[in-house]
């Protein structure tokens, strides 16, 4: 009996020791990642899901090494609703402050949708000294604010495309169709919101005016517009060869349907958020063949065989959630942001915010969007080659429902094909 008791005691001791060791590995408090964003919108919903996905991947490998110990990541989120019409910026900021004060996050990811909320929120982030990697709001004004007081605003970074880079990509596409087909008559249609207005105006001023294009018309549509027939009639009457749409509202899908139904002989090439994901083919009953769309980041609902990480990311998301990604803006930079943060914490070896931001700034990582480095304004650098910089991806819907990458050339799988009824001007 005594022998048995001794064996039992020995086993019990071993169990306690093993449990203690295991506990030592994960015993430290987890690192809290805060996600304050508009979770009721597609980009926010998918972004939050991707943060969870990346965190699970990191935790499965043992978590993040902070000095001598490994610590797990946990995600806390709040819906700040800044993307919803009519929600004032101060209300969104309350949500931002609430998550900082109540959840004590080590860092924030995704952040506000609307640039106005980001700009106002930067002061709150600076006040509480919480590093934030934004992945939705696109205003370059935040970079200017950081440059104006680098010490105060050093906590804010952005991995997604900004409006300035978007202009470059859209100009690139316009130059492409000009060179390839001789098109030089354009009709600009943009949503009447700050980023879309600024993007349209910059392209008009910096490209169309300089290169001698004829701008047949330029219309700004209030958010919620649900009939585009007038503009489409003007496009037909004015002989525009290219329609440049810039919209992120769900109702812009109506434009695509009307463009098809009214058989407008012009190439639709720009950004319409409902066209970004693979589900668009079914949503629009297969009537989007020929439309050209710019997804803001490679990996955001579009992948390229030339960047294998983007293919893996796209497939992992579909496998984990049982449905493909649909948001053409946000998912890829959000995924990258989690890894950038985790790597920065490991390099810093501490959760001190100043040490973390110093390491985030040194980021040089090749991921799903290409190579990511930050500039002086803490903006991820975008370019045309994924080996050199992050890239956006312009694709064209084929008549068979495939998405063919057409720009930039480094990730292109094909050339732009003109839809039926539209002939080259060359």
């Amino acid at each position, binding site marked *: 009996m005594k022998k048995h008791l001794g064996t039992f005691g020995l086993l019990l001791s071993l169990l306690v020791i093993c449990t203690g060791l295991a506990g030592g590995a994960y015993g430290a408090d987890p690192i809290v990642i805060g996600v304050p964003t508009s979770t009721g919108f597609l980009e926010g919903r998918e972004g939050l899901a991707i943060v969870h996905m990346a965190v699970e991947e990191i935790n499965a490998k043992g978590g993040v090494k902070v000095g001598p110990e490994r610590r797990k990541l946990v995600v806390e989120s709040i819906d700040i609703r800044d993307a919803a019409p009519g929600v004032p910026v101060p209300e969104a900021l309350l949500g931002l402050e609430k998550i900082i004060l109540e959840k004590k996050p080590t860092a924030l990811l995704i952040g506000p949708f609307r640039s106005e909320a980001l700009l106002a929120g930067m002061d709150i982030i600076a006040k509480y000294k919480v590093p934030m990697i934004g992945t939705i709001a696109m205003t370059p004004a935040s970079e200017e604010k950081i440059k104006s007081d680098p010490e105060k605003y050093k906590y804010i970074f952005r991995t997604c495309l900004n409006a300035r880079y978007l202009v470059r990509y859209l100009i690139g596409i316009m130059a492409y169709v000009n060179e390839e087909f001789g098109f030089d008559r354009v009709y600009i249609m943009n949503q009447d919101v700050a980023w879309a207005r600024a993007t349209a105006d910059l392209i008009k001023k910096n490209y169309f005016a300089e290169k001698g294009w004829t701008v047949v018309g330029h219309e700004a549509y209030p958010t919620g517009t649900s009939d585009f027939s007038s503009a489409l009639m003007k496009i037909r009457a004015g002989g525009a060869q290219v329609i440049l749409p810039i919209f992120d509202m769900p109702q812009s899908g109506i434009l695509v349907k009307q463009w098809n139904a*009214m058989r407008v002989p012009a190439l639709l090439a720009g950004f319409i958020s409902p066209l970004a994901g693979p589900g668009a083919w079914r949503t629009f*009953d297969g009537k989007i063949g020929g439309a050209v769309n710019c997804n803001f980041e490679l990996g955001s609902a579009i992948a390229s065989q030339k960047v294998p990480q983007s293919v893996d990311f796209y497939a992992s998301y579909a496998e984990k959630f049982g449905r493909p990604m649909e948001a053409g803006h946000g998912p890829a930079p959000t995924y990258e942001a989690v890894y950038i943060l985790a790597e920065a914490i490991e390099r810093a070896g501490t959760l001190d915010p100043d040490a973390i931001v110093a390491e985030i700034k040194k980021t040089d990582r090749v991921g799903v969007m290409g190579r990511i480095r930050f500039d002086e304004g803490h903006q991820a650098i975008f370019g045309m080659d994924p080996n050199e910089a992050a890239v956006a991806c312009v694709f064209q819907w084929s008549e068979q429902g495939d998405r063919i990458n057409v720009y930039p050339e480094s990730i292109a799988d094909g050339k732009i094909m003109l839809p039926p009824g539209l002939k080259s001007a060359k």
Partner: protein
Amino acid sequence: MFAGTVVYAVINSVILLLMAIGFNLTFGISGVSNFAYGALYILAAFSTWMLMNLIGVPYFASAILSILFTALIGALMYRFIIMRVRGQVLSEVIATFGIGLAILEFFRYLGFVGIEYSLPVFVDHSFLIAGTYVDMQRILILVASVVLIALLWVFIHHTSIGLAFRGIAQDERTALTFGVDSDYIAMLSVAIGAGLAAIAATVIVPLGTISIEKGYDVLLNALAVCIIGGLGSTGGVVVASLFVGFAQRFTDTYMGSHYTMIVSLVAILLVLVVKPSGLFGKQKELEERI
């Protein structure tokens, strides 16, 4: 261009009419301002989508089931909530707006955001009318609204329930003395109004996608048209829809799309200043104020 604008103005007017007719009918009969109207429109659209995509019910059967379901929700809404506050206008507005908000935000909470939520068009074809291509779905909307208005007229004027509707609308107390159950009729009016919102959703949603924000737009459009036409006046709603529909399309074509949003607001302001009860409204209390 002018002829094309006229064609699309007619279609736009009819869409506005379809969006407003249910709201107007409910108010005209029971006096209930159903501010959950836009949410019921979205509820019907999502119900159709769910029946088709999650359960596999054929499109037309899904649409009919959704219309009946939405009408039932309208009836339950009246029976359990609106009936308790009926007659207290502010309470009615707060209660129905709250219900609408709850329905819309519940869909958002469930994750019904994204572009995959759309309904297919009935017939995929375009016709050349007055030099402009018009798709079959818009023509169907035109036909559906004419048929709907005709059926409503027959229902209101030639059925016993329709006569009870008119009785309650004209003088509720007198109708009561004739044995008309005003609560039952008011419940029916809310249910039929909800059903009309669902019919509007069934024919209009295939033009685009289903988005939660559209619920608020539909309510605002319905309110604008009803205020301009005169709350409760069917003829007024028809005229106001034509007025706003034409004004919006011609403003879009000849002035600029960003002015279209203020067209209905300016019209509301003008009507409130000149004729507060609306173009065909008969609310003497309002008329006597100017």
